[in-house]
């Protein structure tokens, strides 16, 4: 027999690829790793979705403001927008206009506190829009704070497991201990891999949401000022 083959068989194959690290780990550590990987996938999907959503929102707001301040008749604009689902600024506009229309459709009986009602409607709509923008951001925050702990749990479990294995086999040479600890530490690595982007994205997206909300509120204030001027003019007329 070829001596080289014999040597190759005798020497333990030291394979430390990701797959080996995963495959040799304890079942609990495996579950932790898979959970963290799923969390990472989920968190990245949220990041991508939200980034796209905010970009779209910004573009919508820009185009709506352009149309709004172009001197077009508000009635006409309302008629255009009322029949289709609308978001953010357009939604605020439509909600306020609907309240306005409803108040004057009934022969102008309920005009006295119309300004206050419109403010309420605007507030509610802004709240709803902000909620829509903010949804799922909490998941990012949770993953960012919990993933390291979950990974740590996997590591502790793995190290515990390898120490019990040492105790049973009564062999504590580093070559025996090292693979088990490396596998266990892999869990923490995955935890950090999931947590770090989640934390950074959460902060960034949170800022984006705040910015959008501020913009909506500014628009709502302006729009409310326009409407109240109209109401006062009509009451005086």
């Amino acid at each position, binding site marked *: 027999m070829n001596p080289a083959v014999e040597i190759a068989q005798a020497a333990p194959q030291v394979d430390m*690829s*990701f797959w080996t690290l995963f495959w040799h780990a304890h079942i609990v550590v495996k579950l932790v790793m898979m959970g963290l990987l799923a969390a990472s996938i989920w968190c990245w999907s949220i990041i991508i979705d939200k980034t796209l959503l905010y970009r779209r929102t910004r573009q919508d707001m820009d185009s709506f403001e352009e149309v709004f301040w172009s001197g077009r008749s508000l009635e006409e604009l309302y008629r255009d927008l009322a029949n289709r689902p609308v978001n953010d600024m357009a939604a605020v506009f439509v909600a306020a206009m609907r309240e306005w229309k409803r108040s004057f459709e009934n022969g102008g009986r309920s005009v006295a506190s119309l300004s206050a009602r419109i403010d309420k409607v605007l507030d509610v709509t802004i709240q709803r829009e902000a909620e829509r923008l903010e949804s799922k951001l909490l998941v990012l925050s949770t993953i960012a704070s919990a993933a390291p702990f979950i990974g740590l749990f996997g590591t502790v479990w793995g190290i515990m497991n390898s120490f019990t294995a040492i105790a049973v086999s009564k062999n504590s040479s580093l070559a025996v201990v090292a693979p088990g600890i490396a596998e266990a530490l892999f869990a923490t690595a995955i935890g950090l891999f999931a947590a770090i982007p989640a934390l950074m994205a959460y902060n960034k997206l949170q800022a984006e949401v705040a910015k959008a909300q501020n913009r909506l509120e500014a628009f709502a204030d302006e729009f409310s000022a326009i409407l109240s001027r109209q109401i006062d003019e009509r009451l005086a007329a």
Partner: protein
Amino acid sequence: MVSRSEPGLAVSALGHATVLVAGLLAFAGATPLPEHQEAIAVEVIDPSALNQVTRGERQAEKVQEQPQQRAERQSEIVERKEAGEAKQDTPAPPSRPPELKVADDNVAAPLPPARPTPKPTPPAEPVKQPPQKSEQAAAQEAEQRREELAKLAEEAELERKAKQAEQEAKAAAKAKAEAEAQAKAEAAKAAKLKAEAEAKAKAEAEHKAKLAAEAKAKREAEAKAKREAEIAKNFNPNDIAKLLQSKEQAQSSGSSAPQINRTASLGTQTGSSQKLSPSLRAQLMGIIQDQLQKCWNVPIALQSAPKPVVPQVRMKLNTDGSLIGQASVTNSSPDPLFRVAADSALTATRRCSPLRIPAQFAAYYDDWRDVIVNFDARDVL
């Protein structure tokens, strides 16, 4: 579930798969750490090696690579070794040089070196004569040569005579022929003269060499005679002993070891090579204590003493285990019982002498020739 407005999940899953595959490819295996090198070379010495520290000298010039016991004579082959060790040092088998080829290599076996073709044995060259050969041989040779030369000369003479006769016969004939003959004769004469001169020079050189050799031999003989005369003149009968002594082989009571080693290595002067290992020491002390306690009549008062009274007895032993002189008590105590206990212990040492020391401890005599034994009544009970 994959909508166009929310492609996040698909993109994320795809991205993770890509990262995992890249990781699998990029981190396929761990690179082994660089070869570890000790910052400070540390040699671990076990207790038995420490016990075998060889004696060195503070004044030695340098530390030897492999310190050996200083030895002036070679000891007998049989060396005293600890029990369980081989009786002799067997030399390590010669290691195979790396350039030697391994047998199972698929290489044709090297051809045996071609047998040298038998050369025609050159004629035995005459051994060159040493410059100073024996007188007789030189004389003989010279004689021979002289004879040869004489023969040559005779032949030349004969020839010349024959030619002269011819010349005389031819003289009447032609002047030309005469001139020719004369030239020939002259040439022959020259040759003869030359040969004669050569022979003479050779003989002279030979003679000179002989004379020189003779002179030298004479001088030497004279010098020797002079020396002997001098010695004879200075002869003092009181020096006989000294003279005899100086002729003897150098004696020494120096140490001996398997190898002679005249240079001492650095080390402590008090370190000695044959020391009892801790376990052997404990064993030996146990053996001695056992024997002494069997000989010891423990005083009754000692057995019931509230405070233990333990006299320590120092014994000097011979190689056979017998006592040298008296044993002595090394410690003291104000306890009135102590005197009794010490006396009984000393009696026990006398009664037990000679102690039976097992043969395996004989090599360590230096270590146990002066022992201190505790006589503890509690051990006896």
